[in-house]
């Protein structure tokens, strides 16, 4: 008995998914840019491949990162992924060893017990059977968690669970049915033949006491095959596509491919690699502060996969980057969101099944412009020459104490500086970029670049992390860009500015664009430690919160922004600090409005701690006059 019609659904599904994978891979590879193709080739023959295998094992099967974040959720993912992997692996070995011949068709391994009902009676066979039952039990325990999560998300310790579309639901049910139907099919078969191990055997013999096991087994084998077949066929148009895609993602990432600023194979692979695990939803302040639960990255990925109009979702985000760092799959969520913002609304969003399987690349709305400059009114600027430029930025101009503190610090530091936007400068361009308007942003970038270049400076200091990020990333400048906290740290290290220790308890809020956005975590804290008692909060460094004032989100209301700010400030000031310190004028302004605690920029604290320059000057003057007298 080597064949039975019930295996047909499984076979169809399996071969479909295999062929589909090949075709899809070819398309993806073809769409890669030339340098990325080279990277991939190099990666294949280099360490990237080995690295990827390790990562695939750790992340795709074991789900190490999810385990770390949330053990129960991790276990659920692990039991399903790793368990299934083991089941397939050992099932194949089982069929190979104990089957009638070697190198069987896959269905022989999957439906081994059907074709070898007498197998597993004793000895090594029994031990192996026990092992296979153990794997099945492992999977079923995870499945139990998954089913519970669907109905009650607290089970796995999550606040929100992702919402599903119809095809996802069918795929989900077929996935759920796979293992219970295997269990029942195997149990009935075992029951009929009086074998099977602790799970299938015991269940089988018990069922056989009141049911005709032999007759009952066959329909469940059909159900098992049908569930598998359905699942495979639906796989490419559901979120379960992440299972195969993640392997590509890991390999591509290890080969050094990055998301970039245009949609392409990599962003496509990333989008499909999202398992909708929902960790991003949990991390999102829009969720836990203001209850917006339809715009998080998991939903964005899903909407992109579904060819939905994503512009509303794409723009409704603080761009704080919290989810980027928490994504267990390592998808570059913010860059993908930025791609969507730049893309604008799609011209046409018709959908069909075929589209689902072979999604056309994002059709970007053609910009209807007359090509003329939007900012041709900007005046010619000829800054005075200096070594160091200070660019306060728009937001700093609305927080004049920061501006004045920086002037004081710069004066005291003795560097030859020029306050380049003292009379009010031109925007750095990042706000436009955040709105997806890169072309316009580029005009401002060029304008500011020209001005910076003309000044002949070697260092550019800015007070605003928003400006800092864009200066670092999108300006092609031949100058060193420093955030003012970095500059102050340097001045302290060099001994250029002297400060008194302020006996104040300070908690530091890491601004999104400075911390997660630009990787500047330590310098601000070092400066604060130098002048005050820096306390830790629950939200440090990469886990820091967004103040809510972000220019990244244009969809939420002022009240919602305030709510986010209030919640964040409340968390940060739990230890009753004297000062809530930040390093961003926008964070300062946002927090100041919602907390009783004094909110201050680091520059303000430093300026306060600095020896009064007038006193210093006065003493120096006296000392000098004494020296002069002494000389006489």
């Amino acid at each position, binding site marked *: 008995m080597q064949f039975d019609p019930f295996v047909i659904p499984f076979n169809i599904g399996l071969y479909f998914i295999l062929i589909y994978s090949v075709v899809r891979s070819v398309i993806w590879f073809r769409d890669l840019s030339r340098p990325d193709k080279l990277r991939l080739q190099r990666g294949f023959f280099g360490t990237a491949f080995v690295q990827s295998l390790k990562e695939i094992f750790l992340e795709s099967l074991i789900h190490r990162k999810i385990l770390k974040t949330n053990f129960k959720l991790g276990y659920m993912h692990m039991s399903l992924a790793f368990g299934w992997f083991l089941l397939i692996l050992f099932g194949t070995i089982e069929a190979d060893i104990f089957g009638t011949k070697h190198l069987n068709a896959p269905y022989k391994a999957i439906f081994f017990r059907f074709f070898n009902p007498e197998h597993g009676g004793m000895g090594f066979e029994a031990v192996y059977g026990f092992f296979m039952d153990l794997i099945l039990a492992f999977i079923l325990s995870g499945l139990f968690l998954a089913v519970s999560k669907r109905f009650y998300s607290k089970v796995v310790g999550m606040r929100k669970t992702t919402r599903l579309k119809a095809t996802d639901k069918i795929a989900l049910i077929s996935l759920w049915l796979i293992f219970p139907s295997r269990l029942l099919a195997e149990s009935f078969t075992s029951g009929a033949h009086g074998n099977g191990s602790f799970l299938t055997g015991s269940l089988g013999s018990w069922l056989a006491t009141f049911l005709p096991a032999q007759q009952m087994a066959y329909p469940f084998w059909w159900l098992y095959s049908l569930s598998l077949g359905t699942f495979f066929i639906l796989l490419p148009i559901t979120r379960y596509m992440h299972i195969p895609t993640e392997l590509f993602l890991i390999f591509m990432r290890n080969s050094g491919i990055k998301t970039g600023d245009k949609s392409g194979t990599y962003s496509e692979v990333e989008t499909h690699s999202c398992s909708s695990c929902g960790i991003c939803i949990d991390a999102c302040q829009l969720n836990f502060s203001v209850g917006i639960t339809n715009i998080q990255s998991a939903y964005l990925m899903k909407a992109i996969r579904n060819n939905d109009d994503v512009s509303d979702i794409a723009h409704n985000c603080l761009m704080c980057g919290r989810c980027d760092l928490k994504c267990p799959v390592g998808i570059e969520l913010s860059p993908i969101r930025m791609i969507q913002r730049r893309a604008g609304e799609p011209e046409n969003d018709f959908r069909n099944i075929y589209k689902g399987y072979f999604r056309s690349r994002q059709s970007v709305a053609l910009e209807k412009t007359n090509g003329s400059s939007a900012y041709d009114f900007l005046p010619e600027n000829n800054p005075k020459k200096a070594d160091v430029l200070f660019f306060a930025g728009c937001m700093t101009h609305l927080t004049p104490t920061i501006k004045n503190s920086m002037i004081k610090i710069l004066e005291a530091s003795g560097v030859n500086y020029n306050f380049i936007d003292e009379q009010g400068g031109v925007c750095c361009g990042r706000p436009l970029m955040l709105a997806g308007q890169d072309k316009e942003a580029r005009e401002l970038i060029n304008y500011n670049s020209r001005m910076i270049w003309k000044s002949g400076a070697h260092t550019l200091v800015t007070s605003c992390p928003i400006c800092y990020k864009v200066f670092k990333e999108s300006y092609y400048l031949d100058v060193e860009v420093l955030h003012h906290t970095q500059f102050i740290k340097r001045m302290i290290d060099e001994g250029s500015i002297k400060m008194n220790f302020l006996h104040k308890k300070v908690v530091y809020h890491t601004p999104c664009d400075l911390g997660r956005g630009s990787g500047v975590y330590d310098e601000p804290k070092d400066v604060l430690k130098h002048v005050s008692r820096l306390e830790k909060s629950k939200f440090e460094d990469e886990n820091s919160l967004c103040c809510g004032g972000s220019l990244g989100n244009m969809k939420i209301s*002022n009240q919602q922004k305030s709510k986010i700010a209030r919640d964040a400030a409340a968390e940060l000031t739990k230890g009753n600090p004297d000062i809530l310190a930040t390093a961003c004028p926008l964070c300062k*302004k946002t927090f100041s409005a919602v907390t009783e605690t004094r909110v201050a920029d680091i520059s303000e604290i430093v300026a306060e701690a600095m020896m009064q320059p007038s006193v210093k000057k006065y003493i120096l003057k006296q000392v000098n006059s004494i020296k002069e007298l002494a000389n006489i």
Partner: protein
Amino acid sequence: MEKFGFTISKGRQIDYESNDRRIAEYIFEREPSFRLCIECGGCSATCTTGNLTQFSLRELHILIKRGENDQVRQNIRKCMLCGKCTLVCPRGVNTRNIVVLAKQAFQKSDEYAI
């Protein structure tokens, strides 16, 4: 057309009934805070663009509401989206989104594309 050495002047009057207010409706639908403006002019006072060239967000705001789209279309691109206006606004109007939506609305309608 010109004849007899002059042409018939076009009035400056806003003709509310014949004006096309679809741009305004597009924004109203997507940004409810558009209703909240009390025309205080804080946004225009802080505006970088407004201090460099003829550009008043407050005025554009009202012109959109009245359906005087031409003038808005010619000027809305000058905004740098820097967000100072949003910070200054006493009524919590999401000014940046209004600019973005206005641009979007113009972009969508062929007759007004910018």
